[in-house]
């Protein structure tokens, strides 16, 4: 099942990239389309962020992940690079769990 998702997802992502090189421009060059393309990644990333922060299967759980996201936000306001933000998130959760939180 995982392999199917990996290969189908890869094929879909490549097809989208290649489509840009072959589709006639006027088909896609619409103002509404440009707005949607700017908003799609934001909508999906925000929903993914919310779900992976609080979902535990189909229930909502507030645990060390919430503190990790808050710490990551602080790192981002301090202009930390990507890897540092991720490490700060992981370290925050690890410390809270080590302390029994």
């Amino acid at each position, binding site marked *: 099942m995982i392999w199917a998702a990996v290969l189908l997802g890869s094929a879909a992502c*490549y097809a989208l990239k290649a489509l*840009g090189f072959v*589709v006639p421009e006027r088909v896609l060059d619409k103002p509404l389309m440009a707005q949607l393309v700017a908003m799609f990644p934001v909508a999906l990333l*925000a*929903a993914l*962020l919310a779900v992976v922060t609080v979902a535990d299967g189909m*229930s909502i759980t507030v645990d060390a992940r919430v503190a990790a996201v808050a710490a990551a936000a602080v790192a981002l306001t301090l202009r930390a690079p990507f890897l540092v933000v991720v490490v700060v998130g992981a370290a925050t959760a690890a*410390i809270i*769990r080590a302390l029994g939180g």
Partner: protein
Amino acid sequence: MTGTPSPDDTRRGVLVEAATIGLTTGAYGISFGALSVTAGLSVWQTMALSALMFTGASQFAMVSVLAGGGSAVAAVAGSALLGLRNLFYGLRMRQILQPSPALSLPAAHLTIDESTAMALAHYDRPVPRPALAFWSTGLSVFVLWNTGSLIGALGASSIGDPQRWGLDAAVPAAFLALLWPQITSHRLLGVAIVSAAIGMALTPVLSPGLPVLCAALVPFLFLRRSS
């Protein structure tokens, strides 16, 4: 994720810039590799994503939908929706690079945030080198992203319980870091808040993976007639 272009327009300047961007994404590849293995994918599956899908946000989306118990269909749909922007990058790259049909196939594979941004930046320079910028950035990111993914995947499979190291909490931190630079207007902030709320609200109701796909409808609420 996009490097700040320096004003060095020499061939060497472009290559140094491309290598620097590659190194940055390589570090980010380490976190992808580690998180993917933590989420339950094998090292080979992780490497297949980095080599074949080769577009970061889509890879993170696929891994976390699968880890959350989502179906293969939901995982594929989520990563494809995040990969949609590459279609528009491809349009622009075709105009700028005008590659031969044979070169279009590898060019499409290397069409990502970083290579597109570099090609656009160097298209507007007094000495334009968009093709060199595109290919050197695309190849350097491809090599170092895959190297980083492998290091992260092998590292994570050898450290034991990932929760003890907070690796599960690194996933939302990664999504926040991907999202952060994209919130460039009040409208996009609104999209983010409503989408996050919908994702959370639907989690207890729909099977895993579907709440995130429902959030893909949110941009339609924020469309404007003229902009």
